[in-house]
């Protein structure tokens, strides 16, 4: 079971490495969205301090959602997904492996580049740790919950917009807690409560989402 999961993660990473531009696109989207906000609202440092964490988190949400379309689409188109569903490895394990690979390709780059964007917003350096930690805990939840939406909309016309309508409301708790953690730290209060709740969301999503993803995939593959 673990061997199957490892094989799927390695395969997805390998496929992505063969087409690096796809991986770069979501990251570039993230950077561009964050860079647009100062142009829209003005470059007042006090304002940027206030909105910085929220903007970075909203951009992370959008960028992660944009990358979700690719999660099952290519495998569905060439029939790999059906073979995986028919295989001996439980579908729940398969989807966790796919979500993990998706996070490594779309979530982890965001986490790593976030301090650079925080620099653009002139956030104090002591916040970088909290920002990175909140993204590190929050973006896997986005991948797991988003995978439910990606599995439900698999192969539908207009799947992209529909996916946004389905998953963005479900992302609200992650956004609230993630941006809240950074803002609490900025206010000089501890961010532990928000980070612990984010960790709780991650544990709950890791435990429950695979069932929903597998059920949704089975329905879409029927």
């Amino acid at each position: 079971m673990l061997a199957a999961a490892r094989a799927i993660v390695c395969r997805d990473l390998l496929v992505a490495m063969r087409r690096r531009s796809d991986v770069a696109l979501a990251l570039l989207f993230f950077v561009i969205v964050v860079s647009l906000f100062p142009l829209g609202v003005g470059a007042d440092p006090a304002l940027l301090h206030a909105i910085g964490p929220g903007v970075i988190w909203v951009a992370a949400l959008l960028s992660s959602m944009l990358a979700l379309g690719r999660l099952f689409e290519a495998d569905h188109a060439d029939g790999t997904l059906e073979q995986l569903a028919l295989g001996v490895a439980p579908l729940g394990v398969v989807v966790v492996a796919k979500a993990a690979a998706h996070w490594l390709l779309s979530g982890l780059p965001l986490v790593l580049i976030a301090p650079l964007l925080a620099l653009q917003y002139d956030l104090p350096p002591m916040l970088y740790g909290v920002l990175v930690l909140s993204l590190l805990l929050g973006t896997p939840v986005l991948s797991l919950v988003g995978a439910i939406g990606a599995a439900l909309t698999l192969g539908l016309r207009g799947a992209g917009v529909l996916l946004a309508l389905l998953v963005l409301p479900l992302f609200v708790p992650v956004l609230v807690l993630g941006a809240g953690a950074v803002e609490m730290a900025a206010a000089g209060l501890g961010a532990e409560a928000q980070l612990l709740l984010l960790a709780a969301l991650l544990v709950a999503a890791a435990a429950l989402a695979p069932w929903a993803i597998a059920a949704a995939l089975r329905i879409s593959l029927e």
Partner: protein
Amino acid sequence: MKWFWYASPQTFYPLAGRIALWCGIAAVVLTAVGLYIGLVVAPTDAQQGEVYRVIFIHVPAAWMSMFIYVVMAGWAAIGLAFNTRLSAMMAAALAPTGALFTFIALWTGSLWGRPTWGTYWVWDARLTSELILLFLYFGFIALRAAIDEPRRADKAAAVLAIVGVVNVPIIYYSVQWWNTLHQGASVSFTRAPTMAATMVAGMLVMALAFWLYSIAVSLVRVRCMIREST
């Protein structure tokens, strides 16, 4: 008990017609009674004046908006578990009514908020979570509409409804946290501690009327779906 006798669309169709008719008549009568109590009998509020009367629509609509989502998810779960087409139809038929009540709750709430709070909209925890509930209803309806094959539409929408109902409390508490930690509440929902008995009576009658209305229209909608599918 023949629980599954009415699980077949053919046997349910005439029953749904009879229930819908009686519930519809009762809903009209109770709405008339409730509005009479609310608009004529109930006394003017000491603090808010006449504007408080919007609660006779607002509060029952807000109750229904949340309750219908849970009922919808319940029907969706039954449909997934027993593979009964009728359950999925019930879930699908409830969604537009739920979305309608969510919208009415938001709309009447903002009409009440303008004279009372001085603003149509605040990012209060309840308002925000009600808005997200509206998005969840729209997602459910949109997903069903996007899938052409009826069985897949039923099941996919059912999974979404169940995922949504698990998320609703998380969303509610996270939003409440977000708001209470951010800023002191500029407005409060706490009203005068005692409400006149007639006000409570009017609200309960209206809530009952909304219940019966929801049952009537969703059963009529189910009948349309049964007609379409056969």
